[in-house]
């Protein structure tokens, strides 16, 4: 009667049932004696300080973007390395062109100074004229 996906459905039903039975039985059977110590966060990190809406430094995003690009590059390089011998010179030229594009991009980001991790230097506002003299 059932097709291959029927087995998946039965598996799902059993899995859900197993989890439900385990959780519900533990909830019924377990003793409940809460103390203050049991309600604190532990093993899950510190208590949060301040709000979670924090502005991240834009450089994190640039670094993450560059990381993803070179991550994808490695994904392409592995299958290329496997079939490299069969295809030969053409494969080498193609991958060289691909790497060239990425490297030009990296050099571009580098030359434009986007990889510099300096502390930002805020401009301290200066007044051109002295205010106190104006009264005299």
């Amino acid at each position, binding site marked *: 009667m059932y097709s291959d996906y029927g087995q998946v459905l039965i598996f799902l039903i059993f899995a859900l049932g197993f989890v439900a039975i385990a959780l519900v039985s533990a909830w019924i059977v377990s003793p409940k004696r809460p103390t203050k110590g049991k309600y604190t966060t532990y093993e899950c990190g510190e208590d949060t300080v301040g709000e979670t809406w924090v502005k991240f430094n834009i450089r994190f995003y640039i670094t993450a973007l560059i990381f993803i690009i070179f991550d994808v590059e490695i994904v392409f390089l592995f299958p290329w390395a496997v079939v490299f011998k069969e295809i030969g010179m053409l494969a080498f*030229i*193609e991958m060289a062109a691909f790497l*060239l*594009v990425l490297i*030009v991009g990296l*050099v*571009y980001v580098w030359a*434009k100074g986007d990889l510099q991790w300096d502390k930002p230097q805020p401009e301290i506002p200066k007044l051109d004229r002295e205010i106190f003299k104006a009264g005299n």
Partner: protein
Amino acid sequence: MIQINELVNILPVLIIFIGIILTLICEILFGKNKLVVYSLSILSVLGSIAGTFYLLNKDLFVFGELLRVNNITLAFTIIILTSVLLTFIASKNYLEKEKINFGEYYIIVLSSVLGMLLMIFANDLLIVFIGLELMSICFYVLVGMLRKRVKSNESALKYFLLGAFISGFLLYGISLMYGAIGTTKISVYSTMAGITKTPVFLIGLVLYTIGFLFKMGVFPFQMWVPDVYEGAPTIVTGMMSTAGKIAAVGTIAPLIISFNVPDFKTLLAIISVLTMLFGNVIALSQSSIKRILAYSSIASAGYILVGVASMDEFAVKGILFYLAAYVFMQLGAFIVVSVYESGSKDKTDFNLLNFDDYKGLAKRNPMLGIFFSVFLLSLAGIPPLAGFWGKYYLFYVAIKSNLIWLSIIAILLSLVSLYYYLRIIVYMWFMEPSEELKETEIRSDFLSKISLILAFAGTVIFGFLPNIFFSLFNFVIK
């Protein structure tokens, strides 16, 4: 297996690609001197046009049927490249005026052109998707190029959110089409008989079409057009409304016409009527020139759909001619606006874009006045100009395939459009400018004049000799 000698067959795409890499390197080496990047990007577009002419009159599949090169795709390519060439020539003046003369502008525009060419040449739905995303992502950046203006930021974000949403539709459509037939090759679809009777495939095709109708700005999906066109830098708006639209039309129109589904015919006819109605009627009440041109570009999408709805073999060629004329007149109009426009003193808002600012423009600068009048008359479809023949061929194919009611409505609605085009012309020629306006200086440099003259020449030459276009691509007119 990919052969090295096949690379010659995608020469236009390849030249643009090499152009992008070289421009990037030049931007690193000669960052201070913008002229290097500027001339290099113009050269790569010119080289790409030359590459397209080299490939003319060939009909072949490249890279294992991933790309398709024939005269129709090449014609779309040439029209797109012409639009980008005119944009590039005119953009130097505008970018300097708005103080956004970055080398990245040229690199991003070239990347978007690469995406458009991929879309046009694609014979595989996934290549179409890659091309579309490449084009769209570049457009999102270009729209937000005026970083310090709230309107520009707002329109970039709007365009990005809506565009990303519509990409979902498109991808879902592609997956349904693949699920129904088991292939993503476009050339296979048109050979399979009865393919459009499969419900799953039909749903996929509709979703896929919606993605492109959004990019064209067709009626139920047109809401982004005025806002985005208004907020974007004017020169970018000109390119988006011509090259971006042409890329979308060039991908979807030949596909729909090759299927020739009778139900689509009625549906597209109704959509095109609604689009023309919306664009032309709302444009009547606008006071900003950029918004009027945006609504007129919605109306133009409606005229193009008249051609698509006729599902005739000649329809693609008629659409191609309309688009060729459209590039010259629409882009020309936007270049005039970009030359005349000036940023406000604090650089937070646009200036000199209102109707009233165009009072007496023709008396202050007759050249701009004449050019703008010709572009607007051509957009309205006045006989000796290119826009007339563009509309003529579109309505002609509609009449030929028994859609007489559609062409009558289209002609009536294009009469409506005459009102707002003529209003600008009347303001320019017969009104006196205010004292404040008389003092403002019009900065038009040599390069933007060249691109205006090119656009003017295209509008007039295609108006008097429309056959040049058809004989160039060996298209037979019946």
